[in-house]
């Protein structure tokens, strides 16, 4: 089998990806000027720009006209395996988490909620919509639905300062496992205004149900995350763990 020849732009793209991966250029660093790189790689500006375009598409760099190309690493990488609350996650990483409640009300379970939370029609459900702000930047809008029959005290807790999961655990919930669906959505005008992004910008849409050890649903939630600063990780356990 003959070896495949890589195009010049591919070689440059991979070299720059390696530089970013190994941290020889760091988040926010400006890359060498196009002129310098043209000399270093011995290629034309068009070839170089093709490589930059590819890196930009994958969110590894961003370009500022008349200034240059900058390294952009994904900052919020959440591992989905462990069912770790955002509170724990941000504590682990020394990231400052601030929570603002946008909506907090009691609603009646509709058909969709009766299925997701194993309730009967019209049962009282606690609905909570929160803005989660990481290191000063609004990072996601989270919508939670919890059965008030099961957690009657949930409405009286200050959920701007207390962790929702911790409060539920104190009320006897044993978090065990969950299912999540990740897709792409486009921001509504209202969401876009909150994130200070153009309306219709793409965003992650996550929808999940979390269950307790008995297989009973504890929470149904969905959240919206602008995509530029977000990635999700899933690492399987080692065999011998």
């Amino acid at each position, binding site marked *: 089998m003959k070896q495949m020849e890589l195009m010049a732009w591919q070689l440059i793209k991979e070299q720059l990806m390696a530089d970013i991966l190994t941290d020889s250029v760091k988040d926010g660093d400006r890359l060498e000027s196009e002129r310098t790189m043209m000399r270093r790689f011995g290629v034309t500006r068009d070839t170089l720009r093709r490589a930059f375009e590819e890196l930009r598409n994958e969110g590894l760099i961003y370009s500022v006209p008349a200034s240059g190309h900058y390294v952009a690493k994904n900052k919020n990488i959440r591992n*989905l395996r462990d069912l770790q609350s955002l509170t724990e996650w941000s504590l682990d990483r020394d990231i400052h988490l601030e929570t603002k409640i946008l909506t907090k009300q009691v609603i009646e379970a509709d058909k969709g909620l009766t299925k997701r939370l194993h309730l009967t029609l019209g049962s009282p459900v606690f609905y909570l919509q929160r803005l989660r702000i990481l290191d000063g930047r609004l990072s996601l809008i989270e919508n939670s639905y919890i059965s008030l029959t099961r957690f009657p005290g949930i409405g009286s807790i200050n959920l701007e300062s207390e962790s929702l999961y911790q409060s539920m655990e104190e009320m006897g919930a044993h978090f065990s496992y969950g299912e*999540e669906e990740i*897709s792409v959505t486009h921001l509504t005008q209202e969401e876009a205004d909150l994130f200070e992004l153009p309306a219709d910008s793409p965003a992650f849409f996550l929808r999940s149900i979390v269950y307790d050890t008995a297989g009973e649903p504890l929470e149904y939630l969905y959240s919206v995350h602008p995509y530029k600063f977000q*990635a*999700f990780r*899933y690492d399987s356990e*080692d065999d011998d763990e």
Partner: protein
Amino acid sequence: MNKPYYLQLKEVIQEKIKDGTYSPGKELPSERQIAQRYGVHPHTTRAALKLLEKDGLLQLVPGRGAFVNLPSPDENMKELGFTLPEGKKKRKKAKVHLRLAGPYYAKILHVESQEELYYMKRVVKEKKPLYMEELFVVKKKVPDFPELHPDVFSLSNILAQKEAPISRTAQLLKICDASKEVQRRLKLPAGSVVLLLERTDYDREGPVAFTRYYLQSEDLAVEVKFRKSPTGE
């Protein structure tokens, strides 16, 4: 009274799969050849093969032939992590290439940049394109990769047959802007975004393969199952 011929033929082929005449991953003789050998109508052959596919013993690929299925990988590995829609049978024959690892894939796959990798790119379709897949496999770990019909069987299926099976995977999911090539191959309008899923498969010694999936995001979702880690708290 004898059973109908398609059922008899099904049992004949099933027996040959069992005794290893047709071994896992291998291609069966064509429908026409089978029909000739037993003096039956090609429709009879087709019916027998369909039944075997239903039983999970064969994979039928239109325009290519019938392949003896590989046993499924470990259920645990299958169930956890991001799961993609399977995509049905509309796989075009994809070519496996050789390439140098280069600085980036050398780092990802823990090899020297002068080492050779197998590379394969393909689009998986249902009625419309679902995703584009780019595969990088360490040659010295899976030297016979091109002969294992990588365009018919999934990578995890193939790697599950190896002596050193996959013991762990790491996956990363991002959203990115579709490049011109991705737009063209997935038939997406300009300005589209795609879900980019990157996966590294490891055996006990280290990385074996790296895969990148570009998924059209119009109506596709990735599913994840998670559980509370016993050490968490």
